[in-house]
Structure formats: C-alpha cells, structure tokens
C-alpha cells in the first residue's frame, strides 16, 4: 500500500518507522517533497502547520507533496496527536508519526546538519536537490523556497 494512497476523507495519522521514512525521502520521482518535522508540544511547530497545509492546497494540482512528521510519543497517538490534527482541520497534507525513541539512530541519516531542534523542514526533489531548514516558516517564506525547487 502506497504511503500516499488517499482513501478516506478524514485525516489519518499513520505511524511509521524510520525505514518507511527513509524510502519516502529517497524516492526518485520528480515530485517535490516538503517534509516538516513537528510535535504537538512544540509551539513554533504548531503555529506554522497551517502554512504547510495551505501550501499543499495551493499546489494540489502540481507534483508537490507536503508531509508532516510528528515526533510525539507513539503512546500519545490516540489521546493527543489525532485529536490535535482533527482540531486543526488539516486534510490535504499527509500526517505521519515517526515511532522511533532514539533520535541518534535516524536523525543523522535524514539530515547530518540537523542539530535536533524542531521545527525542521526538508525540501527534496528526487535526486536533484535536497535542502534542510532548521527554523520556522511563514507561508510567504515557504512559497519562496518551494519556488526555487520547482523552477
């Protein structure tokens, strides 16, 4: 089952391990991936989530996929993460929860420059380009960065 198969209208939060994240990030397709790492407990993350949703909505007809990866504890998936996402109304961007308790196992592989602070965003286009941003975004800033990839 493809990770991006959109079946239901309700937003699901799919739990993944690093292996699935890695295959997502190493896809050779010409779709531009905007991957945002966030958590419900991270205030600047929560603030910018709607911009990522907006980005996906605006570019719905283009080869752009916005993916939101929660780093919340897996044990809080039902109690906290799903209700939180339901409240935000996010339904275009795909939401995942990365169930890995040891950041040292996977963070260096995702982005060696990443110090561990969130929010963190990766923009990837196949093998063309890959850029990491350890900072929050406004919608305008996201659009600007995305433009440099799709041009």
């Amino acid at each position, binding site marked *: 089952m493809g990770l991006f198969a959109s079946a239901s209208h309700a937003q699901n939060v799919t739990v993944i391990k690093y292996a699935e994240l890695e295959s997502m990030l190493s896809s050779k397709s010409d779709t531009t991936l905007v991957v945002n790492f966030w958590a419900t407990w991270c205030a600047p993350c929560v603030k910018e989530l709607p911009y990522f949703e907006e980005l996906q909505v605006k570019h719905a007809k283009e080869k752009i996929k916005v993916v939101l990866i929660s780093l919340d504890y897996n044990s809080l998936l039902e109690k906290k993460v799903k209700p939180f996402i339901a409240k935000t109304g996010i339904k275009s961007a795909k939401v995942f929860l990365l169930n890995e308790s040891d*950041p040292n196992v996977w963070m260096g592989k995702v*982005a060696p420059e*990443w110090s561990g602070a969130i929010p963190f965003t990766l923009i990837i286009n196949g093998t063309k380009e890959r850029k990491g941003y350890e900072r929050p975004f406004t919608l305008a800033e996201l659009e600007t960065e995305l433009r440099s990839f799709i041009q």
Partner: protein
Amino acid sequence: MGVVSTLLFAASGFVAPMKGLQPGDKAMVFKLKNTDGKQVTLGENALTKGFIVVFTCNTCPVAQAYEQRVMDLDKQFASKGYPVIAINSNDAQLSPGDNFDAMKKRAAEKKYSFPYLTDESQEVAKTYGASHTPTVFVVQKEGNDFIVKYVGAVDNNAQDGERASEKYVQNAVKALIDGKPVATQTAKAIGCGIKWKKA
C-alpha cells in the same frame, strides 16, 4: 559521515545551524546569575574536576521529561567532582514561563541541588552552540581550561529513562572519572528550540 551521505549532500545546500563547541574544544568560562541572586562562575570551586553543563528550561516538555534524570546526575556525580550546572537561555519576553521568578520557583519546588543560572544575554548559549533544550556539555578541567568531552543528549530515550539503552552523559562522566576515553562523544536529541530574542 559516510561516503554515500557525502555524495548525496555534495550538490545541495543547508541553512546551517550555528556551529557549536565540539569534543576537544575549549569551553567558555561563564559568569551568570543563579536563582538565589548570586553570580556563579564556571570552575569557581577549585575542587571540581569538571562539570555537567545542561542547557535546559522550565517550559520545554522534553526538558521536563529529563528533569529528574538531570537531578539524578548531580546526585551521582557532584561528590565525585562533576556537578551539574543548569542554564536557562530562553528569552523571558518570548517565554514568560522561563522568567527569573519562574526559575526561582522551579528550583525551590524541585529542590535543585545545583545552580540554575539565567543566561540573559543568551551569549553563553550562542558561544556553546546550544540550539535546543535539553542539551548537555560535559567539560573536564585541564590546567586553567575546561575542555569539552561530550555534547548532546542525556540518553537515547526521552520518554522513558529506564528503557534508554545508551546513557550518554552517565557513561561519559564515568569514563572521565576512570581516566578512560569517552566512547560516545556526541549524540543527537530532539528538543525545543531556544527562544532567541527578537532583533
């Protein structure tokens, strides 16, 4: 960094986070205000062999999850020459829960056995290269200098310390005490970005 990842990132760019102190670097001697109002200088106590410097704060859930473990580190190692020094570098305007009164309250409530210093100008966080909380720098006294021996996470399981298979800071300090090399000198961890003052 492996060859494959080097090739992958060769043609790409990163908005690089600030470079911080790495193992082997000299650590800045700071002088900051403690919750009791007094100034504390790194190394003012000549009997210490080193320090467990923890950039932490009141408000970050990850720092909160590690709070007891940080307290335990001081209980375990202060008497052996490696006490904890906690530093809160969050801007109080952006994060009122981290203002001085809140820090005083927290230190008193939890009966911190170590200094909890306020890095008001955020210069110490910037110089050490701390970007988020909690981040630990284990430093060892060598002559008149403090040399960084470990940078990073307390252990490899934020949610459950009992299930952490790697207790990085504990292992690093034990190695220093035993005169052995520190096996794991850096380890990444997720945490809340330090709230930098708005320009």
